[in-house]
């Protein structure tokens, strides 16, 4: 729990920092000046590392096509400018800044120009003060603003990314809640997966036919979630097999997975009180070579014509080879993997396929493994959040545009945007 608190403390500090830094481009007119261009202001560019200055001045009727502005900067010596600092008078407005409403006022009727100082002054040093002014040119009409001074400084929080941070905090809170709950007795609720019923049916059929059952955990190592889920399902299958007294064969790719599976199957037989019929050669090693493994398992399936094949775990290209042979020998096939690229093949040649997270869910349902359970719960929370956001967001957005509620539309669009 200490870690939770520490995390909150850090986030709290971040929030405190950003509150102090929220920025608005506020042009402050200097009444003492006589020049035509009034309201020119320079200040530190918010949400950056401290190398840029933000210049603002009101936009107005003088911003006609053909007119242009030129921004000049000085570190005390000669005035400097650059190509991107000369621009048509109707461009570079506050509305052009890609910043959200909580960090920037895009509706301000003002020009806003961000000046990157290291580009202009090679000897730029953090903390130095710089002078700025802007010139207006329209044919023969020219005007100049008073000088304004500003020193760029580093900012502690990028307020524009607040939406991201809020979501992160939310996910973190839900995460710690689920972890602490998953470890309690009984764990979290996860619905039964329809695919698990298909397992009963397949084993029942194998018993009737008196043929063996093949179960492959794929080519993943023991650290992979699909393999962990697969061993949980293997345990369930082994229990059924033990009680029906059918034959189970588990060919292996990885020796470590094999050791774990031996324990799992033995445990299942013990639980069903059928230790006498447990055989140590149920799990056997085939080859640690992707295609040789597939070829050897193919050969076995072809010879022994099992009643049911299970391909559950981490599979790559060998999925094609395995599922095809089972289908031609007429076995009931149940597959499950989180490898998207292999799912189409399993789906077309197997009777039931556990798709991606469904495999995790089946594993979590059977094993009550707190780590898989908690991940699954956070994912569910995230999905609920996304569903509500999409449904609500699209309706509000449509209503907002339809009835021309500009602020609502802007707010919704900017909340679901990354900056």
């Amino acid at each position, binding site marked *: 729990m200490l870690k939770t608190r520490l995390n909150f403390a850090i986030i709290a500090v971040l929030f405190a920092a950003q509150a102090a830094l929220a920025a608005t481009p506020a042009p402050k007119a200097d009444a003492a000046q006589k020049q035509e261009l009034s309201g020119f202001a320079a200040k530190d560019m918010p949400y950056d590392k401290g190398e840029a200055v933000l210049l603002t001045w009101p936009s107005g009727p003088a911003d006609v096509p053909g007119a242009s502005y030129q921004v000049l900067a000085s570190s005390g010596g000669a005035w400097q400018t650059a190509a991107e600092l000369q621009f048509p008078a109707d461009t570079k407005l506050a509305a052009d800044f890609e910043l959200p409403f909580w960090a920037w006022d895009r509706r301000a009727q003002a020009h806003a120009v961000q000046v990157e100082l290291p580009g202009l002054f090679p000897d730029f040093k953090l903390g130095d003060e710089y002078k700025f002014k802007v010139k207006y040119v329209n044919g023969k009409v020219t005007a100049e603003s008073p000088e304004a001074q500003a020193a760029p400084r580093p900012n502690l929080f990028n307020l524009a990314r607040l939406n991201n941070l809020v979501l992160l905090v939310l996910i973190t809170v839900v995460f710690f809640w689920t972890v602490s709950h998953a470890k309690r007795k009984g764990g979290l609720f996860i*619905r039964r997966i329809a695919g698990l019923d298909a397992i009963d049916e397949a084993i029942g059929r194998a018993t009737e036919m008196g043929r063996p059952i093949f179960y492959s955990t794929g080519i993943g190592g023991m650290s992979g979630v699909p393999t962990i889920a697969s061993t949980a399902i293997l345990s369930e299958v082994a229990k059924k097999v033990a009680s029906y007294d059918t034959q189970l064969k588990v060919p292996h790719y990885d020796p470590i997975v094999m050791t774990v599976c031996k324990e799992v199957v033995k445990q299942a037989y013990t639980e069903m009180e059928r230790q006498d019929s447990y055989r140590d050669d149920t799990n056997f090693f085939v080859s640690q070579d992707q295609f040789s493994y597939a070829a050897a398992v193919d050969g076995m399936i072809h010879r022994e014509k099992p009643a049911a094949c299970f391909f559950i775990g981490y599979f790559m290209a060998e999925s094609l080879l395995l599922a095809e042979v089972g289908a031609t020998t007429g076995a009931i096939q149940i597959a499950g993997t989180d490898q998207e690229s292999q799912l189409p093949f399993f789906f*077309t040649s197997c009777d039931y396929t556990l798709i*991606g*997270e469904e495999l995790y869910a089946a594993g979590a349902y059977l094993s009550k493994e707190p780590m898989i359970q908690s991940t699954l719960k956070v994912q569910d929370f995230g*999905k609920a959040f996304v*569903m509500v956001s999409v449904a609500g967001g*699209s309706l509000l957005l449509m209503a907002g545009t339809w009835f021309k509620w500009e602020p609502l539309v802007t707010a919704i*669009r900017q909340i679901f945007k990354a900056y």
Partner: protein
Amino acid sequence: MSETMMIFGGWVAAGLTIFLFSFLYKDNPFFKIAEHLYLGAGMGWVFQTMLFQTWIPKVWEPLRAGDYYVLIPSLLGLTLVTQFFPKISWVSRYGFTFIMGYGSGLVIPLTISTDLMKQIGGTISPFMVSEITRGNATSLLNAAIVAIGFICVLFYFFFSVEHKGVIKKASNVGIYFLMLYFGAAFGNTVMGRFSLLYGRFDDLYKYSGERFHYATFVILGAMVLYFIVDHFRTRKPAVEEEAA
């Protein structure tokens, strides 16, 4: 590079390609040799790339120039190797923690923005319409299909409630969207795999020419001969092994 080496190369390339293809008939020693060569050559290639494009310019040369800072990441990197020696394998944790902590810290906010925020934003933004006209009716309909399909797929992968009533219906719709995606992916996969095969056949065709002294045909013939001999040598009466 002399012409002889080119021709020899053609023979090697054609031979290895055919060895790997021979797996289609049956698992055999030639396939296994080529496969193991592939593992080794792949590692060898990466190793020499690392050596000449990373280790020498990024570690060796700076060290010689007196920049000893590169020692820190190099030593941390080298700790990873202690994993292979059980007694001191804990040292590798120091390297791993840096890699894992850094990778995890980087990925979290980026996933939130790229895969959560932007995807929600992308789903809802087409709904910004002020009127339904003939022009935007189709795009609006498509946007609605995307949004509804998206929500239904999420229902399919929602495990915290029993699938009954409306939720069951929604998740049933969701699975059809998944099927359309998998179907399209399947179609594209077919195209991808054929492209690769075409590439290999194209090469084999090149090596079957006179310039390479008909390498493809000769090796192909030799392989067929091998399989015939092998068939009679190891003839088993009862079980016919399934071609893998």
